[in-house]
């Protein structure tokens, strides 16, 4: 992590990637008539988008820049990006929050690692702030989890076999 | 003997004898002397070394039918030539020329009562270093039909790359040996005019190019291969491309892919290949991608007789596609019509954004003939294309002249929208003509997905009954509104009896009717060129005043008769004259059937 600008660009990409993934999830579940969870993913996407927007404002980048065309994470995707295969068409709100919790924890860990690294002071300071923010997200999601019903066994049972479409 | 308007000559022999080469030279010589001519060929199943025969008809008139009998049969040897007996009918007036050193002519030929003239072909050739017996035979035949030696020499010069001088010398010897033998002199040639020497397959290939075809996918199959082989170098010259495919499933899809890219495309095949292509032809119908398949029909079912002709793919061509899949089926009804019919099919396919099958056959495809130079066709007909960004994505309905409300809507500029045209462009817009502007890849603002799934106007897959009905109506409308003009059929003559046929049966039918007319009997000829979409009103008009209809076709089950009954009703006294391939109909056979029917 060489410079503050690099760090912020990466943080921005991370938030944007997370936003897009949640939006994709919302879309998939809309198509599969799971409106409740779709709505939750849309909310999660909004939260991440807000975070991204704040980075934009802070950096005074003129407009939403596109996702950098070539960048790589240590892992396959950004630390805050949920895996594509986490979805199930019958998934419950709790499942969505479990996904989000895992992502926020990973993001928190990511920023904490940078804060503890030998990066320039300005970067470490920013990373500490962002880690705090992610920690706050973790707390919020844990609260949210208390308000949704527990997952009952057999939640993924489908009374009908899958469809043949072509 | 009196001078004849037409002489039929066959030259047979086994592998390496060069009968095809000699036959081609005889045809060239006839052309050089100012005659019309036609050469067909037959051979055993061997790739090399099998028995073979070149069969020619040289005449003072144009035509591609066979005569009732051969005047002359010459054989360089008789090994297995008896297998061709059914294809080489002889009569008491016929002459058999054979080399006595090769044994007597088989009984299947002599029992016709034909005379036999032994001529030492091999021994004569042996007297000239580097000469072959086929050239001696060629000389004999040319002399017997009265072709000038100069024409024979000109033909040899054109055809022979090596051994020319000994070849000409051998032909001269043969010419001299014919003296005193019964001869079949041709009447003087007709006035010379612009003529071509061409096979049906070449004609179809050239017609495709005239129609604008610039991409061809090729998988070899007898008897369509020569069409593809003609197109390979020809396409290179005109800036087109030919790709050899791994199978017919690939060739039809390559053609569809290229046509989707905006390039008029074609492939050629025969029955087995057509069967493999059928599923994808349905894709062409559903996705509205123009493509032309020339089916050079051979004897079926299955592998059948790969080298012989039959008109038995009609049912497959008309009805083989699954689902209701309106498409074009065009049948050339003469050798030179392979050119015009294919050119027409390409134009119609492009105009209607619909697949077309051209039903030629082995007889027309592989025969080589001297024909009058074909007239210029309509040439390249450009398909209706979407114009892309800003220029009205859906374009107008050029055919109907009136833009639809949908097209109008699509043409409106969508201010501020990120992807205006692409969102409004309706690839499958429901236009009055059924034809909607097709966007060609590379055009901005009109991207769409061509789909074999049923779709809505935009091309988005849909399982809605309303979309299915609307798109079915649209695809049917394109064909229903087509006006083929006079080209739908060849209608000749008058009378209360009509002979209705298609394809290669037309030649012998026309000749039979000409003989009847000469005898004072009038029979109408209706030879359909546009088989799909059917033209019931036009046929009804063509058959006004007719009481009896004979339906002529070359297949076992009467596919054409069934088609006519289904599409037209045929409220006449109807008789079917049919048999399977591979033997061609001969005029006397048709004449006889008509006479028998009338007296019955």
């Amino acid at each position, binding site marked *: 992590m060489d410079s503050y600008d690099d760090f912020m660009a990466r943080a921005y990409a991370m938030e944007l990637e997370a936003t897009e993934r949640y939006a994709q999830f919302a879309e998939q579940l809309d198509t599969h008539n799971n409106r409740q969870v779709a709505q939750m993913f849309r909310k999660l996407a909004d939260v991440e988008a807000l975070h991204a927007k704040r980075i934009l404002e802070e950096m005074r980048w003129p407009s939403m820049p596109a996702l950098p065309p070539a960048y790589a994470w240590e892992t396959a995707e950004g630390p805050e990006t949920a895996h594509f295969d986490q979805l199930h068409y019958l998934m419950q709100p709790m499942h969505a929050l479990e996904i989000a919790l895992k992502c926020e924890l990973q993001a928190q860990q990511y920023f904490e690692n940078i804060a503890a690294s030998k990066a320039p002071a300005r970067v470490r300071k920013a990373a500490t702030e962002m880690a705090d923010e992610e920690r706050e997200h973790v707390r919020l999601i844990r609260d949210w989890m208390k308000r949704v019903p527990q997952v009952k066994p057999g939640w993924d049972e489908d009374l009908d076999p899958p469809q043949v479409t072509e | 003997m009196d001078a004849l308007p037409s002489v039929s000559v066959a030259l047979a022999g086994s592998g390496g004898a060069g009968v095809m080469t000699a036959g081609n030279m005889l045809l060239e010589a006839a052309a050089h002397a100012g005659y019309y001519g036609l050469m067909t060929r037959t051979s055993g199943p061997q790739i090399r070394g099998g028995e073979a025969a070149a069969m020619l008809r040289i005449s003072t008139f144009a035509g591609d039918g066979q005569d009732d009998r051969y005047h002359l049969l010459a054989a360089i040897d008789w090994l297995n030539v008896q297998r061709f007996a059914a294809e080489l009918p002889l009569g008491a007036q016929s002459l058999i020329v054979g080399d006595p050193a090769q044994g007597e002519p088989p009984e299947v030929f002599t029992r016709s009562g034909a005379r036999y003239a032994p001529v030492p072909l091999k021994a004569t050739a042996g007297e000239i270093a580097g000469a072959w017996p086929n050239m001696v035979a060629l000389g004999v035949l040319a002399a017997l039909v009265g072709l000038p030696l100069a024409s024979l020499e000109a033909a040899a010069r054109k055809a022979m790359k090596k051994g020319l001088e000994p070849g000409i010398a051998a032909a001269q010897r043969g010419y001299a040996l014919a003296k005193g033998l019964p001869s079949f002199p041709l009447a003087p040639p007709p006035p010379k005019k612009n003529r071509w020497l061409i096979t049906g397959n070449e004609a179809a290939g050239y017609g495709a190019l005239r129609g604008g075809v610039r991409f061809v996918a090729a998988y070899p199959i007898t008897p369509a291969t020569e069409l593809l082989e003609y197109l390979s170098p020809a396409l290179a010259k005109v800036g087109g491309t030919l790709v050899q495919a791994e199978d017919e499933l690939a060739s039809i899809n390559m053609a569809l892919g290229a046509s989707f*890219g905006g390039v008029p495309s074609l492939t050629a095949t025969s029955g087995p290949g057509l069967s493999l292509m059928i599923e994808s032809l349905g894709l062409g119908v559903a996705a509205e991608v123009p493509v032309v398949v020339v089916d050079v029909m051979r004897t079926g079912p299955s592998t059948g007789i790969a080298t012989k002709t039959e008109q038995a793919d009609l049912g497959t061509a008309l009805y083989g596609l699954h689902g209701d899949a309106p498409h074009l089926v065009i049948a050339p009804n003469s050798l030179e019509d392979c050119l015009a019919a294919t050119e027409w099919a390409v134009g119609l396919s492009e105009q209607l954004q619909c697949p077309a099958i051209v039903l030629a056959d082995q007889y027309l495809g592989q025969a080589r003939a001297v024909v009058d130079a074909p007239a210029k066709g309509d040439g390249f007909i450009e398909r209706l294309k979407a114009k892309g960004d800003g220029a009205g994505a859906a374009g107008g309905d050029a055919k109907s002249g009136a833009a639809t409300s949908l097209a109008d809507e699509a043409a409106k500029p969508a201010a501020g929208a990120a992807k205006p045209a692409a969102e409004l462009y309706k690839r499958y817009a429901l236009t009055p003509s059924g034809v909607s502007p097709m966007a060609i890849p590379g055009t901005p603002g009109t991207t769409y997905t061509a789909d074999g799934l049923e779709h809505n106007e935009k091309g988005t897959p849909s399982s809605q009954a309303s979309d299915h009905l609307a798109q079915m109506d649209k695809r049917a409308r394109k064909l229903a509104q087509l006006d083929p003009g006079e080209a739908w059929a060849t209608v000749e003559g008058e009378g209360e009896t009509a002979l209705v046929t298609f394809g290669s049966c037309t030649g012998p039918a026309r000749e039979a009717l000409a003989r009847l007319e000469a005898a004072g009997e009038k029979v109408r000829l209706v030879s359909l060129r546009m088989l799909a979409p059917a033209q019931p009103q036009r046929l009804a008009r063509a058959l006004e005043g007719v009481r009896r209809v004979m339906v002529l076709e070359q297949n076992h089950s009467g596919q054409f008769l069934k088609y006519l009954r289904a599409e037209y009703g045929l409220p006449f006294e109807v008789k079917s004259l049919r048999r399977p391939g591979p033997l061609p109909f001969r005029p006397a056979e048709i004449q006889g059937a008509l006479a028998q029917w009338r007296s019955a």
Partner: protein
Amino acid sequence: MNAPAAPMALVAKDFKSDYKPVWCPGCGDYSVLSAITKALAMLGLRPENVAVVSGIGCSSRIPAYTTCYGFHGVHGRSLPAATGLKAARPDLTVLVASGDGDGYSIGGNHFLHACRRNVDLTYIVMDNHVYGMTKGQPSPTTEPDWSSKLAPGGTGLREFHPLVIALASGANFVARAFSGDPNGCASMIAEAVKHPGFSFVEVLSPCVTFRPEQRAWKDAVHAAPVAATDDPARAARRIMTDDGFNIGVLFKGKRPPYKPGVGKSAQESAQAVAALEAGFRLQEA
């Protein structure tokens, strides 16, 4: 990494159509779609200059989900359609999307010949070892002991090895990607598009409905330990002996791609057609 300053002409989203995918939530194909759109943006292409061709199956739904020109043809024939398109229109970038049933079974023969023909195409096969759209029948890459209604107890047949076959048939670029890594998959697809000739990208793309156990693939995959080779023999040995989860570009060949014909202007072409008449015209004696 540079700051994301100047906006790109087009971003991945511009290649994604409004038509919503019908794949099961969690399907690997969502990720492949995402990778394709990212790759096209990375390459700086425009949708109208790209065609995505497919056959039938879950994976073959991709063309309509992009804003590119699409061709959704019949089962198994995507490669021939793409070959015709690219040969007739060499100016277009042509991507082919397929699956293990469409590409390796019904379209198997075309796969061999597309590899050896070496037309400049990018062939992306989403391999989930199962026929998903027809409800879970074994495909050519299904394990021999995988039990299903059509083959209870398994097929007992060994799996088809697409990468080795591609290599042996002459593919000029062979890569294995994983849908769980859309960014890696995107750069591999971009590299495949840039590489001349026939490029084959096999994407392990789990089927969460019929093969939910494939969710474990994300723990099995690992980056190829060495860079791509241009030596087919070396690549073959590596591919034959790896564990099937070796992700990366494995072979980058140097075969010259198929050369399509050289086009002519409409006028030149028409003149050339007219000139061909001479071949048929008889010399007047």
